[in-house]
């Protein structure tokens, strides 16, 4: 069926330095349509949408948007206000919400006349209530956003856009932080909205939901649009090939018998400031030759688990032992000495000191080592040699070992961290979201190294929100929900999804 055109992106291009993020991408969107924008990390999906919304100014190309009566007009670029006025709403992956304001105030922010002596929110409230009724998107309007759950915050973001009469909605990986069930509910809401004439672009790399909920699919690869098709005519395999350019290599995991336990958590309790930083009585064992995957929706205690196993927090109750030794000193240095290698979730902020050199970052965890220092002074020659060797062995590419680490790409920063961790032959490796945001090549490299360490006899604790990654790599799957960890005893997505949502499988 032919629908009215509401948005057309014409040959948008954008470079960042030497990197071409988008190369003459054209996309059309029709009234009431759900378009899925697919692509690997770094394919240019987010950049494209940021240009549409005015956060980035394209180097070339143009955008046309339909007004409420259907006539197309050019959109002034690089101007979020113009995009808002034209009826384009965007929900970012990282929510743009002020936590010290209520949900209502976040929705109204910027929509009222700035310089007025007071506020009258009753009309706004009525309008929002109307939207909530029609779409099923509900959120407590008078609660501070800081107190809302992730799902509620996302609904506030959607309400923000709808309140401003958005006719085109852009959702950047909307389900990344949701359970499969919450995600289904979201798509149901989206369905209700499109019936009212709203058009939606959603960015994703989850083939399953794309196939289930979109009308049309556009695929980006290396900044170019490489394919477009009706969802009805697409299948998982053909889209996957389009995304990665070839059949994605299946990670080969040979069968190994688990060895002795390398990490054991016994009834561990961690009380953090919020639920996401707490663990409530966790028992967990990771054996040698074993990868244990921790699946779960973001904010269910993964952070506390990672901090605990990194030595950054100490448990209030319970014990943590490495091999047969109960750990009593909870600090990162002691954990490194005990043979725990850590790949942090936020590699830019926790993994490297960006202003220091690649070489310095490669030795930062072993400053006590006499290979690195002599009576308190750095052995710069030896450090240089280590850096050269590791950069070569782990294929860390960049402007050189003496250049600041911040100049490396995300993938190369991760390789730097891998080099640092694996070089110390750790007994246990904590890998927290190790492939998030990496391109396929770097992600495969990470997986390969983790499997290699497993083969060598290390235990791996893999925390990931990407269920596919967990299922591909893990010998055992555990599910974390609300600070509790339970064995999944299954590889069935739906069953694990139920556990992630806190319901018995």
């Amino acid at each position, binding site marked *: 069926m032919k629908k009215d055109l509401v948005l057309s992106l014409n040959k948008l291009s954008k470079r960042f330095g030497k990197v071409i993020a988008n190369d003459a991408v054209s996309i059309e969107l029709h009234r009431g349509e759900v378009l899925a924008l697919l692509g690997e990390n770094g394919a240019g999906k987010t950049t494209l949408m*940021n240009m549409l919304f005015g*956060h*980035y*100014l394209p180097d070339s190309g143009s955008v046309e948007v339909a007004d409420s009566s259907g006539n197309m007009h050019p959109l002034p670029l690089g101007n*979020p*206000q113009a995009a*808002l*006025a034209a009826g384009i709403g*965007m929900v*970012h992956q*990282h929510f*743009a*919400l*002020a*936590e*010290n*304001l209520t949900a209502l*105030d*976040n929705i*109204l*922010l*910027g*929509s*009222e*006349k*700035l*310089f*007025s*002596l*007071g*506020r009258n929110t009753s009309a706004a409230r009525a309008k929002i209530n109307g939207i909530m009724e029609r779409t099923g998107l509900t959120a407590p309007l008078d609660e501070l956003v800081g107190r809302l759950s992730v799902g509620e915050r996302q609904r506030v973001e959607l309400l*923000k856009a709808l309140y401003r009469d958005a006719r085109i909605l852009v959702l950047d990986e909307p389900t990344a932080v949701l359970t499969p069930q919450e995600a289904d509910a979201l798509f149901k809401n989206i369905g209700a909205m499109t019936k009212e004439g709203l058009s939606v672009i959603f960015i994703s790399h989850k083939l399953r939901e794309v196939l289930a909920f979109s009308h049309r699919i556009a695929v980006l690869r290396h900044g170019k649009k490489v394919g477009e098709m009706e969802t009805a005519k697409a299948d998982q395999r053909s889209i996957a090939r389009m995304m990665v350019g070839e059949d994605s290599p299946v990670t080969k995991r040979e069968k190994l018998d688990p060895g002795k336990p390398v990490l054991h958590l016994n009834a561990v309790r961690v009380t953090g400031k919020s639920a996401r930083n707490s663990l409530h009585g966790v028992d967990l064992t990771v054996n040698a030759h074993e990868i244990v995957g921790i699946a779960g929706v973001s904010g269910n205690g993964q952070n506390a688990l990672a901090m605990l196993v990194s030595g950054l927090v100490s448990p209030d109750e319970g014990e943590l032992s490495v091999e047969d030794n109960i750990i009593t000193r909870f600090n990162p240095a002691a954990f490194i000495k005990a043979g725990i290698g850590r790949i942090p979730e936020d590699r830019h902020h926790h993994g490297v000191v960006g202003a220091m050199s690649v070489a310095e970052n490669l030795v930062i965890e072993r400053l006590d080592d006499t290979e690195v220092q002599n009576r308190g002074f750095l052995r710069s020659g030896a450090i240089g040699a280590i850096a050269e060797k590791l950069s070569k062995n782990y294929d860390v590419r960049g402007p050189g070992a003496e250049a600041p680490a911040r100049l490396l790409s995300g993938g190369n920063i991760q390789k730097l961290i891998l080099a640092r961790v694996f070089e110390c032959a750790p007994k246990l490796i904590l890998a927290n979201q190790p492939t998030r945001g990496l391109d396929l090549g770097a992600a495969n490299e990470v997986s390969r190294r983790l499997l290699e360490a497993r083969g060598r006899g290390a235990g791996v604790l893999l925390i990931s929100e990407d269920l596919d990654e967990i299922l591909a790599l893990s010998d055992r799957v555990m599910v974390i929900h609300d600070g509790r960890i339970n064995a999944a005893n299954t590889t069935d997505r739906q069953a694990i999804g139920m556990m992630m949502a806190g319901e018995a499988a």
Partner: protein
Amino acid sequence: MEALEIFLNVNFWAASLRIASPLIFGVLGALICERAGVLNLGIEGIFVAGAMAGWMAVWLGAGLWGGVAVAAFAGAFFGLIHAILTIPLGLSQHVSGLGVTMLATSASYFTYRTALPDVSSPPRIVPFQPLDIPILSDLPFLGPVLFQQTAMTWLAIILVGVVWWVLNRTPLGLAVRAVGDNPDAVDAQGLSVYGLRIGAVVVGSSLMALGGAFLTMSAFDAFFFGMINGRGWIAIALVIFASWRPGKALLGALLFGAFDAFQVRLQTQVGAFVPSQIFLMAPYVLSIIALVLLARGADYPRALLKPWFKGQR
């Protein structure tokens, strides 16, 4: 027991309010800046600039309210420098603020010295006089306390209400609070992060300058070198005490004023046994202690000290 009688003395409470007044201006100014996400350590120098500029304007014949306007303008000027350095350029708020303090102080001193090269005792102006407000000054106890205050103290108290109203009851205040918590939220809704922050720092700085002007135009009648004496820094400490709320800022400034007035009076009673410097130190020590006790629970604006650049999410 004599020490306790101090609290029953009208003059004591009047003095407390007088000492609190410049701090009220200062804390309100600093609070506005910090609510928008910008620490303004230029405050000490902006106090000096306000004190000097306001006084000099009056001395040159501008009239008292003219002096207030000139002081506010001087504060806005130095605030704008800090704003440009820290907001669009995203430079260290600490270093920029200290730089502005040095600049504002030296520019004020230089101007004063150049305008009045050869005076041995500083020239005087006729400052603001106590304001007799009908009904209010007839109140028992409170009346005489208020009766001793000048229009500038009243202005400070009124500004507490105004700042509270603007921050909590207007769309502008909503936006200022949001920009100090998450600039991306403000940007995504089509408001200007730079505009809001620069505006807040400029307005906040002009309030700070009024705190300085209070000293030369209400508390005293002349300008001296070194007269600000850390009041700006104390205001920065009081903002934390006030947990960035105007009402608690007023309370904090009043408590501080009462403490300072108390130590001055206590000094006259026990001064023979205790070196006077112990009393002089007390306000600074008190501020440090308050800071230490409140630091852990302090709920800093989340975006404070964090530079934000357009187009870099």
